[in-house]
């Protein structure tokens, strides 16, 4: 029986996809980055509380306040804002470095939806010396459309309860 772990080619393909997707952000190729998201995509970053209950204080339900909950249109609006010259928080653009690791193929397949976990550390360096790290894990749903891997859903669960700074970059 073939398990996901044994599908070496698929693992490599997904890893290379995630590394390239991260590089597009670090190279400010935002429009190209957005093109790897499906039309019906959703990009969510829950907020986080220091709690004891199951779910570890991760808040993203309809009655909760998340940090980010974007559809493709709003991701596009964020990028348009970055290009406008008036997004002062990113003028000039921050220097970023997305480190992606611990990539695991969890379940499913690229036809119906492949669940992929990964860890991420994003370094931001802004202006002279404003430097922050944002650390979390991603829970992605990937699909293959017209031969290319795309992201249908991304949830970034940050480990911070107190963010190092307000979030002006795309994680």
């Amino acid at each position, binding site marked *: 029986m073939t398990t996901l772990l044994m599908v070496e080619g698929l693992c490599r393909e997904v890893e290379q996809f995630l590394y390239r997707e991260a590089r597009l952000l670090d190279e400010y190729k935002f429009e190209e980055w957005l093109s790897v998201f499906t039309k019906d995509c959703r990009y969510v970053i829950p907020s986080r509380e220091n709690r004891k209950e199951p779910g570890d204080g991760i808040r993203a339900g309809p009655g909760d306040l998340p940090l980010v909950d974007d559809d493709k249109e709003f991701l596009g609006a964020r990028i348009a804002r970055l290009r406008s010259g008036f997004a002062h928080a990113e003028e000039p653009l921050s220097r970023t470095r997305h480190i992606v690791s611990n990539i695991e193929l969890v379940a499913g397949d690229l036809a119906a939806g492949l669940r992929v976990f990964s860890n991420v550390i994003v370094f931001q360096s802004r202006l002279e010396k404003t430097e922050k790290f944002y650390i979390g894990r991603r829970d992605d749903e990937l699909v293959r459309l017209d031969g290319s891997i795309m992201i249908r859903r991304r949830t970034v669960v940050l480990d911070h309860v107190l*963010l190092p700074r*307000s979030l002006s970059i795309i994680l």
Partner: protein
Amino acid sequence: MDLERGRVSRRIFFDEEVYHRELTQIFARSWLYLGHESQIPNAGDFVTAYMGEDPVILCRGKDGSIRAFLNSCRHRGMKVCRLDAGNARSFNCSFHGWSYSTDGELIGVPFHNTVYRDLDRSKLGLHAVPKVENYGGFIFGNWQAGATSLERHLGDMRWYLDILIERPLGGIEVLGGQQRYQCHSNWKIAAENFSGDTYHLPFSHKSLFMLKDVRPFNPVGYESASKLHTVVFPEVGHALTAIGTTDERYEADLKLAREMGPEVVEYVKESRARLLAKTSEEQARIYALAFGNVFPNFSFNNFSALRPLGLYLWLPKGAQSIEAWQWCAVSRDAPASVKSIIREDFTRVQSAAGVAGQDDTENFEQVTEATRGAIGQTLDFVYSMGLDNSPGVEMEGYPGRFYPYFSEAGQREFYRHWATEMQR
């Protein structure tokens, strides 16, 4: 400080001695926002908060009343609650095992009779915040047992806060979760922003206004500035901005509601009807408070019944450091479609990752960087806009003193009150 000329020394934003004096003169004596009652509905529910740099627990006791305590064991100081929120039957210290009831009483001392001869438990309960008062669901605490009431402190701003409190159908409900972020800035730079800085909106937030064709942005709330006012409350240091005395905001809500569906039209009409029933014609006409600040550091914004009630605390963590804590609230009985667009609106705009919140951070941080040097601190910040309108006008039927929309009167009154408190 020379408020007659609208000048405030930059020193007060960076000087360590000034900051330490603020901790005793301002934060140890003012009414400070702790949380909303909807966050702690049941007995044993708690949230943790800060009053100045003191960590506190805000807890609903067994008898249903709300109390606050310093989050510190009376024995040797360990925090007795290390969670942001939850429900507790008691607060237990992990150091030597002392335990406290949710009313703050010391109920458990391990080996008490063996190891202690004279330990008066009744005197070693959690150090209570002596005054905790609730205005319309907003809970404030004051470390001074002899402080005047919260109502007195809110002063004439109460009349306006009643709009915020009475309009929501079913009352205010704070959404689950919170957002917290660090910011390299003095707390006053953030608080004064909500106290009257309408001037920064078209510039700092220009990229936001450029997104007006993207949901949830719409014309609601972007009325002509000439019809709006800054309202200040001298003696107490609070201020409100962009207050309208026509029905324009309600009309804009109705227009949007018609596009959304009949249950939303009904919600908007009922919201206004509720305001008329519970408050007054004048208050119903104002309908939404835009943005404002309750001295010292509790800010809020609400532009419409179809937009979020944002709640903000600027917690002092040093002369050049704050933690910004923020929440989003809705009307408990609003239709699901309304709660959904409100949640989306706050998340996209004011969120710590939102398209408005980010640009304010850049300003706060770089103001701090530019003015911390020896020469920078010899200069003033200029708050002279609208000095020629001093002392503002009285509008028949509306408390407070009125200034034009673009004005720095809100900030001047904030610093006037600050100076009074610092010298008291």
